């Protein structure tokens, strides 16, 4: 009887490891950007449909949001889960709890404009990252991604994939409220 105890213990240990492994999400890569300043950029702003980019006008840089706690939401019209997340963003923008700014990632302006017209526009503005260079600076690898940035321009939280109501209520909004103080 005693000789079976060791294999049993090893087996249980293995089961424990595998059970824990099942609960981990391999897609959630911890971002090294938490606690670091949001990378700077200077990008054209997505215009209303029919309007083309006026040279020099309508650009956005994260520094413009200094002194505010805000969300940077990376989205694209070709991104399926952005559509799932979008109603939550629209609702959040209606409540006016947090300024939401968009980073339109590797998209076509016309598609992006049509998408916003169809599903609603929760963004104060969307910066256009057509070639995805800024996305790389932000470590974007699966749209949608959302960054909570504080008044000093430091990234405090990163959500990879669609924001769920639980994440919004339990993490993002309390963190934002604490940061605003």
């Amino acid at each position, binding site marked *: 009887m005693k000789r079976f105890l060791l294999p049993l213990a090893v087996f249980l240990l293995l089961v424990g490891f595998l059970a824990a492994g099942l609960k981990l999400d391999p897609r959630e890569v911890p971002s*090294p950007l938490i606690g670091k300043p949001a990378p700077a950029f200077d990008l054209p702003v997505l215009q209303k449909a029919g309007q083309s980019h006026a040279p020099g006008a309508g650009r956005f840089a994260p520094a413009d949001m200094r002194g505010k706690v805000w969300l940077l939401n990376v989205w694209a019209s070709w991104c399926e889960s952005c559509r799932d997340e979008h109603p939550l963003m629209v609702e959040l923008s209606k409540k006016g709890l947090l300024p939401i700014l968009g980073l339109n990632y590797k998209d076509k302006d016309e598609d992006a404009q049509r998408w916003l017209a169809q599903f609603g526009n929760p963004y104060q503005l969307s910066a256009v990252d057509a070639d*995805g260079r800024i996305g*790389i600076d932000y470590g974007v*690898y*699966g749209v949608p991604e959302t960054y909570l940035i504080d008044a000093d321009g430091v990234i405090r939280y990163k959500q990879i994939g669609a924001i769920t109501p639980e994440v919004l209520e339990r993490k993002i909004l309390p963190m934002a409220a604490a940061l605003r103080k």
Partner: protein
Amino acid sequence: MRVLIFAFLISIAFNARAIENNDNRIRALEEKLRCLVCQNQTLADSNADLAGDLRKQVRDQVAAGRTDQEIIDYLVQRYGDFVLYEPPFKATTVLLWVGPFLLLAAAGGFLVVAVRRRRRAPEEPALAADEKRLVERVLGPVEKSGDAS
């Protein structure tokens, strides 16, 4: 004139060599880096859109004369250690690197103990006199051990 042509040819050869070296460097770098979208592929193997963008970054930076370490640092700053196919050796990854060797050592130790214990085990007891008689009656006279063969 001949000298000029010679110099020209040499410069072409050197250029080709430099380009080839760069290609090898780019290839080697891409094989060290993980595609974040399809996580079990290297940048070199992946067809994902982002992998293409990151490959372009690697190419551009190699062309701009950055060192391998600078390029790797650039990506690690943005994507974390996860972007490296081979995780770096640090406090959080000690078990990952050392674990297999620990297991091997443990198994080796276990084996040594088991073998020693078996060797120390008493040998088969010799047949008692009455048992021997019984065997002889069934099998015929038994030759003394050592005489056989």
